[in-house]
């Protein structure tokens, strides 16, 4: 037969196979073979691989009748859906090659069978990967030393300008961290104990000691998986992306399974800014979610957390009632359909293509028990102890140094003798034990039925992917940023940006608007800590903030369990105190490092001792050697004390001025002290030390509390 495949093509195919070979071993070696008490995971994985082998080549060809792999790659750069790592980056070739090796190990195919399928699939993978990685110029994260810098400057600028600063302990930080934990767990459940609904890309440099990691959470709502019908109807977004900036933490590894490692270890406390977006094949890139203010974002995370938690519990109960066959099917379908979003982008998604099990794979079910699943998978991708995985004795495999190869190469002999087969053939009818799909498909344009979803996808091209812009890459921008065309491209991306809308292509990092300081939440909590139990207007007054802002912040803190409402007033809870304790060192780092401020505080303490004596003298009289309560009948005595208070205030003012110079809001205490002094001098003597009014002593005491908290000191009395 005539061979349509050239020597050069075969050389390249074997090279791509080998690249997957080396990396798959590395990826597998740091994890044990997956076992689960709930799902027969290794068994369903084997079933899914077989489904992949018999269907991917034809389904990929079908996708390319609508859109080329490299064109889909352009789309993939602009959204957080399952066309990234691990989906296309590893699973597509990895699953296929594992299936091929599995079938070879059973003696059912030879390395030279289905060659056209293999060459085509690896070529599709290469074209999509090169396009997806276009901005960093690699084919895989592995080739880039385990890194993926997919996004263009114009989008990274938007992230940098629009993300909200947060610090451990504030309500945005707390809400965001809680949500990522809850949604991660939900995703493992949706995906039958696998990580394929999570993706991480990056890192990107965000200044001297900061890096951005882009985290995607996918297929959260009603959509492709029939088991989400009815349990996830209330989840308002199918895909969410959380760009997360960390400080003093370097992501030294982001692999093709989308896992990351960092030095030092990534912990929640490292996160200093976050945002939230949704996207899909029908959206103009990433659409902001709850991003108008830090308070709104915190509330959005809190609300989504509740929604996802409810959906999670419902889904868990549904899964707990499944038979083994249903668990096998759901798991195998999830794995098999890991690349299904390619079909959504191309607008050619069909339920029977992606959510049924091809008869040629289904036949193997009788042998797919738990033990065989575990051991067969372990031998395939761990110990590589199948006969077909052994190569000549001088060989040293990358990483293991053993004479083994996870994935067999295609023998070049086929170019001479023509002894090969081309393809496994057409897709065969499939079956499934899962309930039929009854729900709709959640998209950024609402709940759609499948025909509309496909039609809209076929008709839609995001602006930045249009013919006008698609080849205007980062290198073109470098030399043409001052052109109207570059401005137009940047403005298209900036349309939904809060801070960069209409700014165009000329900005560099230094030109971005400075990030607002961490949201008012922590300061509101700090104010409440000083006032102990009070209403929002009182806290706002002491801090010099708007009442509505403080009110929103304290309400959010109530939702985050940091603050309680007691008799119509707010009260700090232990969790709120703990949040403040955790936040103070960073929150007041500048003041704590300021020698002037610390010296002024030390002088304040000296004046404080004098004030304490003065108040004691105000409250008591010495009569015949013993102290008795001052009944304020001796006006001369009282006037003498108020005079002393005036003198003390003059001394205090020099200290207070220095404090207010370093932290403006502290000036409010000076004003209040002066008011109290004047009232005392005018005969309202309750304003010397009265506990129910803003007396001199009350204000002084609160200022003292504020200073102690700022500097992390204990009250010495």
């Amino acid at each position, binding site marked *: 037969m005539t061979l349509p495949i050239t020597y050069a093509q075969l050389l390249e195919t074997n090279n791509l196979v080998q690249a997957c070979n080396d990396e798959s071993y*590395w990826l597998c*070696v*740091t*994890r*044990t073979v*997956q*076992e*689960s*008490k*709930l*799902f*027969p995971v*290794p068994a369903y994985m084997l079933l899914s691989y077989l489904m992949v082998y018999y269907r991917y080549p034809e389904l990929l060809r079908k996708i390319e009748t609508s859109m080329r792999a490299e064109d889909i790659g352009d789309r993939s750069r602009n959204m957080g859906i399952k066309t990234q790592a691990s989906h296309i980056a590893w699973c597509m070739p990895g699953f296929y090659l594992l299936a091929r090796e599995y079938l070879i190990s*059973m*003696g*059912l*195919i*030879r390395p030279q*069978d289905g060659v056209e399928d293999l060459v085509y699939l690896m070529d599709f993978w290469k074209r999509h990967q090169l396009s997806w990685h276009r901005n960093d110029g690699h084919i895989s994260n592995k080739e880039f030393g385990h890194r993926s810098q997919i996004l263009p400057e114009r989008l990274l600028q938007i992230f940098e300008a629009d993300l909200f600063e947060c610090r451990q302990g504030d309500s945005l930080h707390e809400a965001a*961290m809680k949500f990522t*934990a809850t949604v991660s*767990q*939900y995703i*493992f*459940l949706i995906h039958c104990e*696998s*990580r394929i609904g999570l993706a991480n890309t990056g890192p990107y440099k965000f200044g001297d000691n900061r890096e951005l990691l882009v985290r995607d959470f996918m297929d959260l709502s009603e959509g492709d998986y029939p088991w989400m019908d009815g349990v996830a109807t209330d989840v308002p977004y199918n895909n969410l992306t959380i760009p997360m900036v960390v400080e003093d933490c370097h992501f030294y590894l982001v692999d093709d399974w989308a896992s990351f*490692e960092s030095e030092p*270890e990534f*912990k*929640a406390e490292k996160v200093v800014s976050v945002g939230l977006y949704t996207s899909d094949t029908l959206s103009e890139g990433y659409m902001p979610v709850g991003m108008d203010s830090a308070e709104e974002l915190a509330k959005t995370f809190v609300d989504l957390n509740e929604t996802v938690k409810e959906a*999670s*519990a419902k889904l868990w*109960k549904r*899964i*707990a009632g499944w038979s*083994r066959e249903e*668990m096998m099917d759901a798991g195998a379908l999830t794995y098999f359909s890991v690349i299904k979003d390619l079909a959504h982008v191309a607008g050619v998604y069909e339920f029977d293509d992606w959510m049924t099990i091809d008869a040629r794979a289904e*036949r193997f*079910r*009788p*042998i797919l*028990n*738990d*033990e*065989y699943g*575990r*051991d*067969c998978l*372990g*031998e395939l991708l761990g110990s590589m*102890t199948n*006969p077909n995985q*052994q*190569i000549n*004795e001088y060989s040293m495999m990358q990483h293991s140094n053993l*004479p083994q190869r996870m994935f067999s190469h295609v023998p070049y002999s086929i170019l001479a003798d023509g002894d090969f087969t081309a*393809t*496994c*053939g057409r897709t065969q009818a499939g079956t499934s034990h899962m309930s039929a799909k009854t729900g709709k498909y959640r998209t950024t344009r609402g709940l759609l039925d499948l025909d509309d979803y496909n039609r809209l996808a076929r008709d839609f091209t995001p602006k930045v992917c249009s013919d006008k812009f698609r080849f205007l890459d980062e290198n073109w921008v470098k030399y043409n940023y001052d052109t109207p065309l570059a401005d137009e491209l940047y403005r298209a991306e900036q349309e939904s940006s809060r801070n960069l809308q209409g700014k165009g292509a000329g900005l560099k990092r230094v030109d971005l608007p400075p990030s607002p300081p961490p949201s008012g939440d922590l300061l509101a909590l700090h104010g409440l800590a000083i006032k102990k139990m009070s209403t929002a207007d009182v806290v706002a007054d002491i801090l010099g903030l708007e009442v509505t802002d403080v009110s929103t912040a304290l309400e959010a803190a109530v939702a985050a369990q940091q603050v309680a409402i007691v008799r119509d007033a707010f009260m700090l809870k232990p969790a709120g105190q703990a949040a403040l304790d955790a936040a103070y060192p960073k929150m007041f780092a500048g003041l704590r490092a300021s020698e002037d401020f610390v010296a002024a505080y030390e002088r304040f303490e000296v004046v404080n001792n004098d004030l304490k004596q003065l108040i004691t003298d105000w409250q008591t009289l010495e009569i015949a050697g013993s102290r008795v309560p001052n009944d304020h009948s001796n006006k001369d005595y009282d006037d003498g004390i108020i005079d002393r208070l005036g003198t003390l205030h003059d001394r205090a003012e020099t200290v207070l001025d220095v404090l207010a110079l370093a932290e403006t809001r502290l000036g409010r205490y000076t004003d209040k002290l002066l008011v109290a002094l004047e009232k005392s001098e005018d005969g309202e003597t309750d304003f010397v030390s009265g506990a129910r009014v803003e007396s001199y002593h009350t204000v002084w005491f609160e200022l003292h509390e504020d200073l102690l908290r700022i500097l992390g000191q204990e009250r010495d009395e």
Partner: protein
Amino acid sequence: MVKPFFDTDKYTREPASPTVIAFHKAIKDLVRSHMEAGGNWNAFVFGEQENVVNADALQAIEDAFLKTGYRYQGSAMISIEEEPEKYQILATATNSEIKLPPPDANGRILCGTGDNVVQFSENTVGTALYVRTSEQVLSLLEDGVPDNTIAIIDDSGGTLTAPVLEYFKGVVCMGGTVRSHLGILCREYGIPCLMNSGVAGIEDGDAVEMETSAAAKTAEAYQKNIEMTANIWKQC
């Protein structure tokens, strides 16, 4: 008569596990018989094979294997529940059979080790609770997880304990690595967790201490097989 390709293999070896050896040998026997009976490979590979190596033939292979008295090791609870005749009944050692080392100077008995997921400033102390069945998880979900519970979990996935995971004070997982799903989830929740653990002599209700102040195990340590473990003690 055509010899099937796998019968000529310069570097061949036998697979390592009993079920793989048995099933693959039986499947290859079917292929060999077909070829010996005059089969043509190209017609067989993506055609006739579907009739020769079909679900019935594969079922017969399993039946013959189980007739030898072999019983599978199960991992998912559902597999053992649905087909108990095919699976081994899990025998669990009772604590009286286990000999533990003497207590250390702090009055703790070393009961096991694990790989630390995240380093915390302090060790984690709590009350041991084995979590093994979905019924158990359901009742924890309904009645609440007792304070200070350190869950001891057999599998490294996160789904069995999904609805209650965030309420545990600590997690000791008998499988996986620090990069497994459960490790990832515990890291997200900030729950102290030891993966790939081995414990002996701990019963429900025992006061246990996880050495979560130990260094977290790194990818490099896994790759190079470097020992990097954290201890698990029982307080006596």
